[in-house]
């Protein structure tokens, strides 16, 4: 493709430029922030939305999927937000702190900021920091920069979010749930920064509730895990409406630190969960898990790049996908090992279970290794339910549907159990059952 040729914009792209022109006067941010937004809009203008001829989006053609772009969501109705917050029950009775972002903007009134402050966790409204002297730092994610189309879309339209800082050494006693709520239709675009200080520990839960009426959800999380810190981030991507769900995390890991994440997707129409993990200190570990369920005409994409830029770090990537109907599952995983990143240990596995003849899985595990003293492995499998296992369960009186449910749960639970965080993941079994019963 010749990049210098002006492209013919799609309806959705024209809608997006319109959207930007209408909304730009209301966006928060310093002059530098505005410049970043403008550059991001120009990138979309020059290259269009990411599409199948862009290698990273080969299987996930956002440009073809988005027929039109909705306006951004208006300010949230706080009463409705409060009701949705009470109704959403992703984690049952789990004791947790909550931070609420409604229609893209932080809502202090609904967030447990006092309790969090007592635990050493400081929360700031992203829109406040964007106005400040260093505002633009919060919109430039390390490494990935502007080249990723979904990230550019986020930078251009970001409505708000939070900056969450855990003080050095703080061990936050309860998981912190960052709840994104949609009280009305319209696109929701948020950016959140999470900084876990040296030696601190945080268990983060990310949930999204409410209907956007087809407006895309685009959330970027910028994680910084300082030396000897621990961050476990559990992300639930569910919802049945037509909205494209686009999630990006960029993680920077210091020395002797541990980062874990679980991306749990059950039944969204079109979703991409992309993660960029960067090791910057030695003797650290990253464990990335994905559990994906898709049926009907759904498309579910888990994309991951782990950069081993320094020696003596371990990473483990384990992804499980269950597909039914005509659904398309995508796993793209790459481990990069720089020349001096000796003694790297990377192990990547992706496994898919296809419940129908028409479902399709694209597995693309890649290793790019420039160091010579490393242990790296990858594997990919796709298969169907084992008829012998199914027969054994049925021969004991378990009806076919329930027997299949047991086997799907067994398949997915391998990744969920390895992730750990049992109190957090306990309720996920019910989510799998709901998906199996209702997709």
């Amino acid at each position, binding site marked *: 493709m010749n990049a210098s040729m002006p492209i013919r914009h799609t309806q959705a792209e024209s809608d997006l430029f319109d959207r930007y022109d209408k909304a730009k006067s209301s966006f928060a941010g310093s002059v530098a922030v505005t410049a970043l937004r403008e550059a991001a809009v120009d990138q979309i203008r020059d290259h269009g939305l990411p599409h199948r001829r862009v290698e990273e989006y080969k299987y996930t053609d956002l440009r073809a999927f988005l027929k039109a772009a909705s306006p951004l969501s208006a300010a949230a109705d706080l009463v409705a937000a409060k009701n949705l917050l009470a109704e959403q029950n992703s984690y049952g009775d789990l004791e947790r702190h909550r931070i609420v972002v409604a229609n893209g903007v932080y809502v202090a009134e609904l967030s447990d900021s006092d309790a969090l402050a007592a635990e050493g966790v400081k929360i700031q409204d992203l829109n406040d920091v964007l106005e400040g002297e260093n505002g633009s730092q919060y919109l430039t994610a390390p490494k990935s920069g502007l080249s990723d189309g979904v990230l550019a879309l986020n930078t251009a339209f970001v409505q708000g979010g939070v900056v969450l800082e855990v003080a050095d050494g703080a061990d936050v006693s309860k998981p912190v749930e960052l709840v994104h709520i949609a009280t009305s239709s319209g696109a929701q675009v948020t950016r959140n920064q999470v900084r876990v200080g040296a030696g601190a520990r945080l268990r983060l839960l990310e949930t999204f509730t409410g209907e956007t009426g087809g407006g895309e959800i685009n959330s970027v999380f910028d994680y910084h895990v300082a030396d000897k810190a621990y961050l476990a981030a559990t992300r639930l991507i569910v919802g049945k409406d037509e909205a494209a769900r686009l999630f990006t995390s960029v993680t920077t890991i210091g020395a002797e630190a541990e980062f874990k994440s679980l991306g749990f997707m059950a039944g969204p129409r079109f979703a991409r969960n992309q993660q960029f993990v960067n090791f910057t200190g030695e003797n650290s570990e990253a464990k990335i898990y994905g559990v994906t369920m898709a049926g009907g005409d759904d498309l579910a994409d888990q994309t991951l790049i782990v950069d081993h830029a320094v020696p003596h770090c371990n990473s483990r990537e384990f992804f499980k996908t269950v597909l039914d109907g005509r659904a398309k599952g995508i796993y793209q995983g790459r481990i990069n090992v720089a020349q001096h990143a000796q003694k790297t240990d990377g192990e990547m596995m992706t496994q898919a279970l296809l419940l129908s003849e028409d479902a399709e899985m694209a597995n693309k595990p890649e290793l790019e290794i420039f160091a010579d003293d490393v242990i790296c492995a990858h594997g990919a499998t796709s298969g169907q339910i084992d008829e*012998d*296992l199914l*027969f*054994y*369960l*049925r*021969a*004991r*009186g*378990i*009806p*076919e549907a*329930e*027997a299949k449910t*047991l*086997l799907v*749960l*067994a*398949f997915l*639970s*391998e990744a969920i159990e390895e992730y750990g965080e049992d109190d957090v993941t306990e309720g996920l079994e019910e989510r799998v059952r709901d998906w199996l019963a209702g997709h």
Partner: protein
Amino acid sequence: MLEIKNLHARIAEDETEILRGVDLTVNAGEVHAIMGPNGSGKSTLSYVLAGKDDYEITEGEVLFNGENMLEMDPDERAAAGMFLAFQYPIEIPGVATMEFLKTAMNAQRKARGEDALSIPDFMRRVKAAAAHLNVSMDMLKRPLNVGFSGGEKKRAEILQMSLLEPKLCVLDETDSGLDIDALRVVSEGVNKLRAPDRAMVVITHYQRLLDHIVPDVVHVLSKGKIVKSGNKDLALELEKNGYADYVDTAA
């Protein structure tokens, strides 16, 4: 209880005929042994009774308490009281043994219109049955059959059998892979389940199992047909002379 009439079955995939006219009647309270050389169709018969769809019935019928069993799904047969103790019990990683037992027992109860077991009632039953069969709680905490030795797998099968309280028990080479001690434990477990309202079909290659589980009737299956029936002495005769006579008879 079980009436098999002129049953013909073949492997669905390649149409190889395995059962070529089996006739067998088993009454409540009786224990029948089916012996025969390798390849005579013993395991096929057990799979056909349990409802594995790798096989196609081309002729004949199977009545279970007067009902056409061939039209029932495997889980319906189980709920009606059919139990197959597998020759090779399957390992199912990710399915906890206790969860599996509870699901199976309650699924059968539901199919019969009975209430689900309460957790304490379920636990009491499992503990009692496990104690008789030397099945440790540690085994029950593992995923189903995963990491079980051959003997443990067979004991787990008999544990399932005693918890599910079937009307018809089909034991497919339950003695294979067992040492003498394990064979005794398993046989005692089976004998405990002998009852006037329960029938058993014990499929075995060797006579030694029948020293422990003494049958009322012994049948010889060869080339897909029952070629001779008799009392338990027939098993002893087979042990002495081998199957050569019957293989020739059938040919």
